């Protein structure tokens, strides 16, 4: 027998957790896309290593 009655508060907490999870996932995708655009852009260059001598 399920004695943990599903209360409205549990649904609200679940909604909050799912929402935060989706936002974090979206943020990861956004940073990935930004990184890709930045490093494939024309003005991107790796730092030059100055050789001694």
């Amino acid at each position, binding site marked *: 027998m399920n004695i943990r009655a599903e209360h409205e508060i549990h649904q609200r907490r679940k909604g909050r957790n799912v929402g935060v999870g989706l936002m974090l996932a979206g943020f990861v995708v956004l940073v990935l896309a*930004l990184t*890709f655009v930045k490093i494939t852009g024309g003005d991107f260059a790796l730092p030059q290593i100055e050789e001694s001598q």
Partner: protein
Amino acid sequence: MTDISYQPQTHEAEASLGDYFALLKPRVMSLVVFTALVGLLAAPVSVHPVIAFSSILFVAIGAGASGALNMWWDADIDGVMKRTAKRPIPAGKVTPDEAKTLGVALSGMSVMMLALSSNLLAAALLAFTIFFYAVIYSMWLKRSTPQNIVIGGAAGAFPPVIGWVIATGSMSIEAWLMFALIFMWTPPHFWALALFMKSDYDDAGVPMLTVTHGRKTTRVHILVYTVLLVGLAVATAFTAIGGPVYLTVSVILNALFLKGAFDIWKRDESAAEHDGYRVEKAFFKLSLLYLFLHFGAILIEAMLPASWGIWA
């Protein structure tokens, strides 16, 4: 096993995701997104869509963060005013500390991410805007001077400048024209609201012009600021961000806005009370349309081919 954390009397008020979102003042955020986007697209430099999207998103988050800080600071007076009594903190959904933490965290995150996605100047402008709204306006001016919304209006005027700087990396006269448009628009917009939200500001002890100098003076101020705004808005048509489409839209809107301000100035308090502040409410609604359509016209001018978009 029972869920020992279950306490109905406290959980009834537990916040949902929507309550935290409401802390960010979504309606203000939508205006920020729109004006910043217009600033970005009106600039004579194209931006990669991913960079444009993420930069505008971080500007919106920064604006939302300043909204949360404003709600944290103003929780006491928000509870007194009818217009704001249902906000998450006075409604008991979110604690003031949660709002403060959210505001500070999102402020830092949005400024850092904007610096990475666009440039340092845009990020510095966003940081200054958040500081201006949360500290200069909310903590200092709002409760100390009837010029609160005149000076504080600058915070709402920065987004198109930030949008322009995201694209170009520098500021220019066109960006400051868009700033001036919002800056001059803010006082008549808020004073009209203060006229028909009759007792709110009195009850909260906020020194709005209606409280400190009376309603007649407020009506005069609305007219004066509107006249100044009309000159600025129409003159913008003859700059690089203006053009024939903007001029047409601006002339029509400014004629209506000027008539509205004149009607407000002309009538007295008893007439306003008699018809439930019909003219003041109509002016307030028109002011929202006024700003939206002016920036919409700037956007259209930016989208048109060069030969259409600027005066030959």
